[in-house]
């Protein structure tokens, strides 16, 4: 990281033409360049397992691009252990069994040392046994429903307590509008169902009654939201401040928000808090009627830090498109990749077992300020931000957690898992350790 900084500052400042500062920064940069001799030797292979075709290509292609950018950057800095990094890209085509096949190919044929990939929970669930069997390393960059903790997976996206719970806390708070009724609306698959189960239990613990929680699921790609929006409107007419928590997936969001606008539901009446609407999704929407709608993430493109500015600039240069947005899963890959680089450097080898053990405790600055730390349960510490959609399709941060939050693999709000923790450090070394009975359940993930 320290090497990227001067290089890009040099570019940025160079154009502004202040000869003296260029000289100063140039001097600071030279030692780094001398160190960064062209890497030689056997390349270290990095697997990229993201769908480049099919329905998920819309989100995952970007993550492939950001990985290529990070790898190119690392190579420019001298590679890793003096060896060059080589990306190995496969296309699992949004097809879950194919994910497992491609993962097997990456690990046993291409012999990659780390894999960055997957988006949907179902793709992660299908590759998990492969990574455990062949002792691979997977970095998974997307917020998810939790309730899993594998030694071979590093979860660099948010767990429910790093997104869903703080988001609901915000809606319950005075500042967030004192919501007393909740419509949990989602696409019908594992992530929304598990998240909503956790949220419903959490809300009940906060004194919200059963009749004040409405749960509604829709098929993938739902395009006709008329009935559901009018149901939400009617649900909000009980005289209590109502909020919608949306776990609606990708494509279906556009017609959902359009219908909200059409039926005159504005963010000031019934705010919608979304967990999977980011900058990339907004880029395809007419955002005028969405102003004020909310989203909870650990990263927003609009957050004003020098690291983030540099990252965005680098991204625009790499993609040669100044309009490409950045988003939360991209930051997760950025953190995960740099942590892996650190761990390999520290371990002095790419040996999987050694790297997995070294990963715990590694710290890496976030793009939004603050530091992410890899916890013994293979989750990160993360700050949580609530953003409001602006007319320009960006989010303005209206609230953030006072400090970073440690990711929980197992939710205390699900009765079956409330005593479980994951801890891959010695002496426990277990993904599902029951703190009440002091036993490890073993190779069982749910």
């Amino acid at each position, binding site marked *: 990281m320290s090497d990227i900084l001067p290089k890009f500052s040099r570019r940025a400042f160079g154009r502004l*033409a*202040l000869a003296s500062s260029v000289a100063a920064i140039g001097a600071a940069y030279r030692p780094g360049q001398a160190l960064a001799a062209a890497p030689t030797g056997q390349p270290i292979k990095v697997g990229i397992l993201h769908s480049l*075709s099919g*329905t998920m*290509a*819309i989100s995952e*292609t970007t993550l492939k691009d950001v990985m290529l950018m990070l790898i190119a950057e690392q190579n420019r800095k001298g590679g890793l252990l003096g060896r060059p990094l080589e990306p190995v890209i496969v296309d699992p085509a949004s097809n879950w069994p194919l994910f497992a096949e491609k993962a097997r190919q990456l690990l046993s044929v291409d012999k990659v040392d780390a894999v960055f990939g997957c988006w949907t929970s179902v793709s992660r669930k299908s590759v998990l046994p492969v990574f455990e069997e062949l002792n691979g390393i997977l970095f998974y960059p997307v917020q998810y429903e939790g309730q899993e903790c594998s030694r071979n997976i590093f979860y660099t996206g948010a767990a429910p307590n790093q997104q869903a719970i703080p988001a609901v806390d915000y809606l319950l708070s005075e*500042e967030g*509008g004192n919501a007393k009724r909740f419509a949990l609306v989602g696409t*019908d698959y594992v992530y929304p169902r598990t998240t909503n189960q956790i949220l419903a239990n959490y809300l009940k613990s906060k004194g919200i009654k059963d009749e004040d929680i409405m749960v*509604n*699921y*829709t*098929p993938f*790609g*739902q*395009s*006709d939201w*008329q*009935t*559901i929006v*009018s*149901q939400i*409107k*009617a649900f*909000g*007419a*009980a*005289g*209590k401040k109502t909020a919608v928590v949306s776990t609606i997936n990708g*494509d279906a*969001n*556009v*017609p959902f928000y*359009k*219908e909200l*606008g*059409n*039926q*005159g539901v504005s*963010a*000031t*009446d019934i*705010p919608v808090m979304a967990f999977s609407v980011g900058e*990339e*999704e907004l*880029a*395809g*929407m*007419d*955002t005028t*009627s969405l102003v*004020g709608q909310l989203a909870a993430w650990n990263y927003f493109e609009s957050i004003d830090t020098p690291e983030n500015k540099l990252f965005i600039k680098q991204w625009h240069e790499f993609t040669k498109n100044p309009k490409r947005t950045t988003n939360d899963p991209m930051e997760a890959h950025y953190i995960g990749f740099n942590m892996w680089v650190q761990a390999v450097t520290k371990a002095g080898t790419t040996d999987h077992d050694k790297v997995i053990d070294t990963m715990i405790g590694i710290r890496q600055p976030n793009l939004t300020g603050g530091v992410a730390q890899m916890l013994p349960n293979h989750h990160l510490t993360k700050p949580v931000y609530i953003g*409001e959609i602006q*007319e320009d399709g960006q989010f*303005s941060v*209206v609230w953030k957690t006072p400090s970073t939050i440690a990711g929980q693999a197992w939710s205390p709000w699900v009765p079956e898992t409330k005593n479980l923790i994951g801890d891959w450090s010695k002496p426990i070394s277990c993904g599902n350790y029951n703190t009440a009975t002091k036993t490890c359940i073993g190779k069982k993930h749910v």
Partner: protein
Amino acid sequence: MCRFSQFLWAGVVCLLLAFSGVRGAAADEFSGLESGQFNTIADTVSAMVASGNPQAGAVIDALEKRHLVYSPAGGVFIRAGTTYVDARTGQSVQNIPADLKPVRMNNHVRQVLASATAELELLSPEDAVRLKAATQMYAQHNPAMLPVIHHALEREKNSHVRLKLEQANAATMLAQPVQPGQEATRLAAVKTLGSAGDLEARGLLAVVAASDHETPEVRKAAAKTVSSIDLKQRVWSVLQNAFYGLSYGSVLLLAATGLAITFGVMGVINMAHGELMMIGAYTTWLVQQGIRATVPWLEPVSLLVAIPVAFCVCGLLGILIERGLIRFLYGRPLETLLATWGLSLILQQAIRSIFGPTNIAVITPAWLSGSWMLGSVDITLNRLAIFVFAFLVLGALMLVMRKTSLGLEMRAVTQNRRMAALMGIRTPRVDALAFGLGAGLAGLAGVAVSQIDNVSPNLGQSYIIDSFMVVVFGGVGNLWGTLAAAMTLGMGGKILEPTIGAVSAKIAILVLVILYIQRHPRGMFPVRGRGVES
């Protein structure tokens, strides 16, 4: 040059520091805007309106348009193009600080802002503006607004606005905490709200009915009114669902009419039909972008321009597909299925390569956004437009089929290709035109769908199954069947959805269609006659 500007900035900063020192000493009603705290900003806005400061209107207007900026060092400015006006004095400023940021906004501030605007608008000479403001007051029922509403009521002459103001008064009154000796006024307020009878009134009355602070009399009246509103709403909701069903049905109808030509009339299983719709939607986007770049004043009607353009683009593409691919496969429906499926993948990937994999934003013009309230039925304008459009398209298509020579030739060719050829009809030309017509109709459907769904390379996939379902269910080769099937499926889905949920409704409809097709393999309106092969 650089040095000079640096010097200048230093001067500005110094000046600013000097000013902020002065201001810091005497915090005025504007300084809350500089705080960056949402609650303080909101309080400042309401205080400013209440104070009657002459600058209030301009400040609120600027804040709403996001033209209000502040410097953390002190100073609030209104941006007007490239120049700035001091919000406190209304005078233009020359030396603008460098670190200007927009005054922060969140939903709380937006809410306060909405009532502030409504308050200012209640004084407007125009009835429509006052009515809008009164409606806003009614929806927000903020007790702090009570004096304003009373004041407005005293002067209001227009009966519509007056009625709305009375309802706003009643709502605001009931939203206030109970004070002793208010029973009569509160009962009257409950009655007024009962006459409004909408969801907002129901919400307020539900709170009153459940409150421990109200007298039993008021609670009882409120509970009674709530149940009468509920009853009324239930009746309205039947009509509302009927509208949803019709509008959903008209989307299905639009998606299916093109297919009814290619599949129903020509016997080609066109799996690329959805992709033709997608291309229609992308054409709409291109037309919008083109108009925005060249003749911006035409922007509101760009959608109307897109209709013929999309029809022609998709129609020509259809003719190209027919000449290049389909014509070799007549009489072999399964091969057309495979070939057009491959084509659909190619088209999808082509669009993905040209426009990128992400969604693109097709703008819904202002005249198509929002809704009309017909009693308690919410008629959304874009859906209404699609409903009308679908019937216009179907009507035009029927005219073409019945009244033009092309229609006659098409019917002749489908009934008996050889005899038609012997009669001198150039069957290849008719085939090409018929397929082009079907493709053009898909393009029209694409224009419509761009207004309600997201426009991405995957757009077509979500409509292809529905379209085939409609055509098969309605009876292959019959436009009336297509109409009846689209409306039946649309209505059926929307009647089932509120009770069993969207996922189950979709499954239930599929099961019902399967059962029906088993009984009546030729669909609702089977084609009869000698031309039909047994």
